[in-house]
């Protein structure tokens, strides 16, 4: 069930990282990783966050958990600002929000047994007696589909998919309401990826989780999300219900992204729109278009991936004109029908 009340909300958050360590740490240049994002996720909802590498999607995910401090703006969980909480309160709040990482190899301590990895959060939050914790770990392993004897083994004994299950069990241990899945299936093979996607959907339904699903794979995001936000150069350029975004993308960047996804149907080899050039650097981003894509917008053109379709060229000019004069981002504050 998706409620209408936002569980997690960011209001006009900015995050700048200084780079090029100037003398005494006074960096001159700054990466504008997140540039004034406002976004709300309703309880029980899955919000998909898509964008290309370096667009700031992981940074935004970490800001929502206050694993990073925003440069400005506010982060709310259940209506309370995370930024004004005392350290003790914040730690208590962390029980309600967890993260699953991309790299199933790098995110588990190789020297810890699975039982300790999964149970660490229970220890930190002092939940239950030792016996209760052990029972809880066993329950979690079963929940994510690992054999009971996994508890006594080390991460290296497991395959990538199984390690990702361990990461999910760890995130679920303390009973969170909100989970950030940061490229949680990107490193997995297709057949294993499907297992983990199904597991996440099952768990979400059973436990009523709210999910921020960060990924660069548009197919996976469409499969998982209720609502989708497209991020580009630190900003949300378009956000709306999944079907709307995928069927009727309005922002030129969204259209380009969607047209770039290869379709697994050899009869539908298609025309593609290509953006000229690379993603601009978020260091000193180019000024202009409020949606942050002036360079590439100017270069939007249709590239024909197959000859013989030159007749399709004409709509492009009108498309480009609309793209740059009428940037239309949908409103992002809350669930929309």
């Amino acid at each position, binding site marked *: 069930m998706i409620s209408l009340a936002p569980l997690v909300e960011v209001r006009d958050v900015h995050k700048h990282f200084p780079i090029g360590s100037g003398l005494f740490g006074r960096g001159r240049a700054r990466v504008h990783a997140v540039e004034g994002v406002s976004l709300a996720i309703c309880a029980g909802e899955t919000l998909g966050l898509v964008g290309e590498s370096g667009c700031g999607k992981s940074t935004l995910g970490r800001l929502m958990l206050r694993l990073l401090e925003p440069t400005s703006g506010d982060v709310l969980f259940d209506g309370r600002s995370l930024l004004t909480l005392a350290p003790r309160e914040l730690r208590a709040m962390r029980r309600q929000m967890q993260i699953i990482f991309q790299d199933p190899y790098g995110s588990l301590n190789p020297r810890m047994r699975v039982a300790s990895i999964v149970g660490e959060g229970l220890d930190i939050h002092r939940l239950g007696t030792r016996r209760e914790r052990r029972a809880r770990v066993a329950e979690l392993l079963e929940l994510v589909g690992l054999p009971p004897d996994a508890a006594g083994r080390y991460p290296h004994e497991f395959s990538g998919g199984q390690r990702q299950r361990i990461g999910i069990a760890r995130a679920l241990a303390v009973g969170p309401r909100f989970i950030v899945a940061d490229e949680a299936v990107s490193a997995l093979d297709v057949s294993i990826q499907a297992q983990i996607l199904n597991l996440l959907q099952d768990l979400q339904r059973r436990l009523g989780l709210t999910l921020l699903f960060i990924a660069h794979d*548009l197919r996976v995001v469409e499969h998982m999300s209720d609502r989708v936000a497209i991020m580009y150069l630190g900003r949300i350029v378009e956000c709306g219900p999944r079907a709307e975004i995928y069927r009727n993308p309005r922002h030129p960047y969204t259209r380009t992204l969607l047209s770039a996804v290869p379709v697994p149907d050899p009869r539908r080899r*298609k025309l593609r729109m290509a953006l000229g050039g690379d*993603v601009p650097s978020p260091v000193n981003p180019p000024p202009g278009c409020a949606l942050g894509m002036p360079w590439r917008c100017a270069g939007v053109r249709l*590239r024909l*991936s197959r000859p013989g379709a030159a007749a399709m060229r004409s709509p492009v000019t009108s498309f480009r004109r609309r793209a740059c004069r009428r940037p239309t981002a949908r409103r992002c504050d809350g669930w929309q029908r």
Partner: protein
Amino acid sequence: MIAARPAAAPPLLEVRDLHTVFALEEGAVRAVDGVSFALERGRVLGLVGESGCGKTMTALSLMRLVPPPGRIVDGQVRLEGRDLLRLPEREMRAVRGAGLGMIFQEPMTSLNPVFTVGSQIAEAIRLHRRVSRRAAWARAVELLDEVGIPEPQRRAREYPHRLSGGMRQRVMIAIAISCEPQVLIADEPTTALDVTIQAEILDLLRTLRERHGMAVVLITHDLGVVAEQADEVAIMYAGRIVEHASVLDVFEHPLHPYTQALLRSMPSLGSERRRRLEAIPGQVPDLLHLLSGCHFRDRCPKAIGACAEQDPPLEEKERQHAAACIRV
């Protein structure tokens, strides 16, 4: 090519019963276990499979670049009828470049950081052609232009770290095509790239193929990329090709249970949400501990007792459509 070729000319590239083995302490890993296929001029073969299925080792075996302790133990790799596995290393070096060109997955690590990109392309040219430095440099700039790098004059004098991932992959492509190979082997050429850049690189490969008439072996795990680019598809599992057919047949009428499962396990644009993906149970196989008979049988919905008894041969089950499964 002045001499007319005989009527029954051999295919441009023909691989017969290729075996590549890694002798490890724990045992022998048969990374490539009897792979056979043929490829004609101008065609694109998509070689598809999950991690560890042997697709990269197949490519490296064609190039005779298998890293130790791996060794090609059996088979033939015939380029225009000439068996490359029997060539002395000196002659093989000439084949790499003019016969077979290769692009690797990691554009970040395949370029030497201490040389300019222009000099790296020029070096590749001078390895194969007796041309002056100046001519090689001019050709390098031309190639950078051909692979779509803006301001090629200036870019040629830059070091790899100044280029983005997509640009570096373009440079790698420029090096691979610098000697106009007959077959281009592209090993996951877009896996490390963002989707918009991926689209551009794939379009570039298509343009180059059409312009130069190269055959391409496109190695990938992305079925979408294969559907868009390949003429024919070979699906690999645990070191073997389990299905080989035209791209239409593989996508619309897959015969092998693994291919069928792979296609169903993949989310695609425009699919209904909440449809459960049909995941393939179990894990990607460990080549050290393979099952007897069909390696896929423990994850296969159609497996029967007989599947354990013999290695299923890759046979033509329908016209131009081969599968390695006794249940088809």
